[in-house]
């Protein structure tokens, strides 16, 4: 049974921005898949990622830590991480913990694109 999936969808290959869609739940169990996927992207030179969270139903500290680590690595390579449209529940979790102050959250792909143009 599938519990977590991560897949690439190019947003703007000219600008080097990759949209990555997550679905299912991101916890201590599934985070290894996420790490492997994003390692591969970084290894291929990607430094700008929009994480589409519309399909993500849950995130725990393991997942938040992975987002954190990814964000810091992208920044080190001159890029950035944008979180797109978290579900109400994932937004609530991030917000209650204070992570909405830390992450770059967007509500539309246009907004996400603009982040990387500025």
């Amino acid at each position: 049974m599938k519990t977590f999936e991560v897949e690439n969808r190019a947003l703007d290959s000219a600008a080097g921005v990759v949209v990555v869609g997550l679905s299912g739940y991101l916890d201590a169990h599934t985070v290894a898949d996420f790490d492997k996927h994003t390692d591969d992207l970084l290894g291929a030179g990607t430094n700008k990622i929009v994480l589409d969270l519309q399909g993500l139903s849950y995130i725990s500290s393991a997942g938040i830590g992975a987002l954190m680590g990814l964000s810091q690595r992208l920044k080190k390579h001159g890029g950035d991480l944008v979180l797109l449209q978290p579900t109400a529940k994932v937004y609530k979790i991030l917000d209650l913990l204070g992570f909405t102050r830390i992450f770059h959250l967007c509500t539309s792909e246009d907004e996400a694109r603009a982040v990387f143009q500025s």
Partner: protein
Amino acid sequence: MTERRPLAFELSCPADKSVLCWVRGVVVQSASELGFSEEDLHKIELSVDEACANVIEHAYPKDQDARPLIIRFEAEPGVMRITVIDRGVGDHGRPGAVKSVEEYVNVQRHRGLGTFIMQRFMDEVEFSQEPGEGTRVRMTKFLATPSAQLEGAP
């Protein structure tokens, strides 16, 4: 109509990452029967996940076969207690949780977020451990009274 009696049960399963999703499901189902708000259910779900993930990751030597993870659930009127128990090493001298998200972000090695979450989301969190006896994390959550809920509303 038939009223529910307070619920009390114990779950035991192998401390393997794959059980986390199932444990969350059982705990949320059980807590929701007690009348917790959706936000409180999120907080309970995450706190139990963190405590169990710690057992799975830290309690047992890598090569140990028997790795019990035990979750005890007790409800009394207005209060729910969940105790997460392992039979593992127990002598970890828990390195204090981070104090804020900003501290967590700035620290090089990202650790301590689990304990931060439990302490932030539950009303009481008690750790106890004995070398060779394993660890217990006892978390208490009080049901908001209707008036407390009103006070919390915008």
